[in-house]
């Protein structure tokens, strides 16, 4: 059967990272779901594969947590679409999650690089 065989180099998103990516994307301004998906894909230079179904469930989850809010509106090409925007609470969460993420990647980097002997840190 036909599957997405031509996108082998795409990586499925890590658990929990989707939320962070959505928040980050919305920091630029209100956007609808399809826009968010495109934006993530484009900005990750097509590395991330965004499962659209998961995206909408995630959007709903963030809305339930009151990190983002949604409103039906009209897109630039005159289509009806549901626009999401960050709430103040969402901004806080973004800052917090970003901090967590940097700490995580740095720690991962330290461990993975240790064998390579690239110890720049003092």
């Amino acid at each position, binding site marked *: 059967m*036909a599957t997405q065989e031509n996108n082998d180099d795409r990586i499925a998103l890590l658990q929990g990272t989707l939320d962070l990516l959505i928040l980050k994307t919305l920091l630029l301004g209100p956007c609808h*779901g399809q826009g968010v998906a495109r934006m993530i894909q484009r900005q990750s230079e097509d590395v991330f594969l965004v499962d659209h*179904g*998961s995206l*909408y*469930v995630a959007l709903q989850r963030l809305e339930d947590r009151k990190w983002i809010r949604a409103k039906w509106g009209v*897109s630039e090409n005159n289509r*009806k*679409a549901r626009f999401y925007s960050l709430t103040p609470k969402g901004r806080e969460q973004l800052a917090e999650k970003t901090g967590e993420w940097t700490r995580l990647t740095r720690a991962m980097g330290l461990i993975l690089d240790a064998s390579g002997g690239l110890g720049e840190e003092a």
Partner: protein
Amino acid sequence: MFRQKRSAEDFAEEIKAHLELEADELRGEGLGVDQAQWMARREFGNVRAAQERFYLKGRWVALDKLMRDLRFGLRSLKQSPGFAATAILTLALGIGANTAVFSVMNAVLLKSLPVGDPNRLVYLRTSNPPRGAGTIDSNETFSYPVYDALRQQGRGLAPVMAYVPLSGSKVAVRYGAQPEEAEGDMVSGTFFTGLGVNLPLGRGFSDADETNHAPLAVLSYNYWTRRFARAPAVLGKTLYVSGVPMTIVGVAAEGFEGVEGGGSTDFWIPLQNRRELNAWGNPTEDGKLYIADSTWWCLRLIGRLAPGVSREQALAQLQPVFQTAAYVGLGGSPMEGEKRPVLSLADAKNFPGSYNTDYGRTLRMLMAMVGLVLLIALANVAMLLMARNAARQREFSVRQALGAGRGELLRQLLTESLILVTAGGALAWGFAQMATRLLGRWAQIETSLAPDRTVLLFTLGVLAFAGLLFGLAPLRVALAGRAELALKTSAATSNMDAGKSRTGRIIVALQMALCVVLLVGGGLLVRTLRNLENTPLGMNVDGLVVFGVKPNIPSLAEGRAFYVNLIGKLRELPGVESVTVMVERPGSWWSDNSDMQVDGKLPDVANGAARTVRSNVVGPDVFRTLGVPVLAGRDFADSDTATSPHVGIINEEFARRFLPGLNPLGHTIGTDDGRWSMTIVGMVKNHKYRSIDEEPIPMAWYEYAQIPIVGAMNVEIRVHGDPLAILPAARKVVQQLDPNLPLIRPMTQREQFDTTIAHQVLFARLAGFFGFLAVLLVATGLYGTLAYRVSLRTAEIGVRMAVGARRGQVVWMILKDGLVLTVAGVCLGVPLAMLVGRALSSSLYGVRALDGMSYALAVAGLAVVALVASAVPAGRAASVDPMRALRTE
């Protein structure tokens, strides 16, 4: 109701918008219209899955599921309304009866006194009173000097509190103009503080109030509510008690109605020292009140253990003090050969012992009976459910085959049982409320019977148990039908399971055994009731009315004049046939018992038999008024006065026992100390005196005008027509003589006697009712089981009839089934019933515990029920059309 924050439609709309936007974009990248749409959809993946995930994420999915289960359960119950109604009613009756009886038991036996730290409270008891002392109760009452000595001691018990009623029944009170009656106690100054009873309004008493005999009153919350509509303005108002003004200073905590079980005290006043307010409302004896009369043991005592003192230590400290104080005014020491009384302390946590024995045994037995009824009811519903679910086996199999998990089936069964139990429980609660109120009224329990948390927990516990039982019991049957069974279509093969129906048969047989037990118990008690109600009283109570008066009597002469006056005025009322007065009213449980001299000496009795004589003080025309035949001599008359020769009247039993073979007229009888004697001028027929279920006992009557003491009396009036109709006129007459006097406990003499068997009547009626209920339940259970079994055997019956079985044979086959069960139930039930009968024997009157009639009736009753319950299914079986039955194969 609960709504999802966002509808699934809205979510679907958003996905549609997404697909359009994506297609637009793809077209912008150069794809054709169709290809763009196809790509957008492909990129998105499974739209349905996303929608499903959205739905499952919804916050109320669990509730949604429950609602769906409930709806499904209701729908499936609606398909068999007969089953649902039977199950719910059965549960409501079984659980309601238990809740009602438990409510009463809880209020009477389990609930602690509404006081602070009841575990440290003790009632004081004595092994016996010292010789020469008169008592109210030979174990529970004490003299004032004993009270005084114990409270002064102050170490083991701190404080010791005394309380004593102002009257054996009710006392006259007046608030405003209208005289009324109420129950009042005189108490120590430490009463409220010592018991730890709060006063939400006003204050209690102090030591000084007791010392000064302050004219103050505290109302019970109940009385305050009932009589004063909870008006806070009652504080400072005057309540006249026996004509003595008392200032209302407080209202006691809700639920506190005195420390004696069953009764309900309306008000309390500090211990008084005046003639109108003597203990128990008695006239003074030799001019002495209860405080001065050390030979009258009339005070009840309750104490609180001093901090850090155990009950044994307290008793050790008080015992010598008590044994010395007991002989104050009685010569200081015991007579020769007399044992000193011994003090003991009894638990006051619950209501006192006497109450326990009176109601306790009856209530426990009732509780056991309703417990049996509940067992039968639960078994019934469980069996109905099992039968029903067995019939649904095909349904379950199909559902399992279609992918329903065992968990889903279990949830569905539990939901159905939840619906049944909830509906049954709600109905039961309402039913119990009604039944409790009725029970309280019948049993004349005056304490509050309102259900509290304990009762609620009890009911919820029973309901939870029932819910689980009903959910789980049928599960076995449901799961036994495995998925592949759905493929078998033969009714005969898919529904036959011998082991399962054996369980059902055993349950029915056990139910029948329990039913026999309840029927025998009910039968014995109902026969007791009939015996009691038909016992001849030996007097004519029709047209007889009685009420009490407690006039203020400053002197003997004035007291006598009051009654002469009263009798005279009452006789003139239209419709009155005759009037008399007496100290003890018949049928009130009270009697004055003592030894009496006959012809100047205590009579000889064979081998230590009792010499006790009951006596009463009465007015003129007493036996004519009561309708007791005078066998020899004459009745008392107006001509018997203080100055005429002292005369007395005896009953047959007195003559038979103490003057055997002699003409009693002309003999002298008198008090045991020889201070008082009189000549017998009449002998009357034996009649009931204290209660209906008593045996004849020697009796003697004094003329009230001839003895040196006069106090409260009961007035008996014989009228033509309705006896109660005379009361308004009588009340007017009494109040013309003294506006402070209410009529105390006015009622017909018949009612008065009925109070002496009220317990047995109540017990018998309830037992009869529960027996009837049990039969009803067993009948439905048996019918349900048999009908179900017949429905399972339709095919078999069809085959039998097709090969030549006659109708009669088929009917007999089904009937035999029911009869075998009945015989098994009877064989098991009769020995059980014999055990129960033995336990009941002390509650029986005029019927033996092994009364053949009761057993025969119980067995016959059960047989009839079994026959009727079997006949309908048997009839149905016989009318099976062989062709149709076979075609269902």
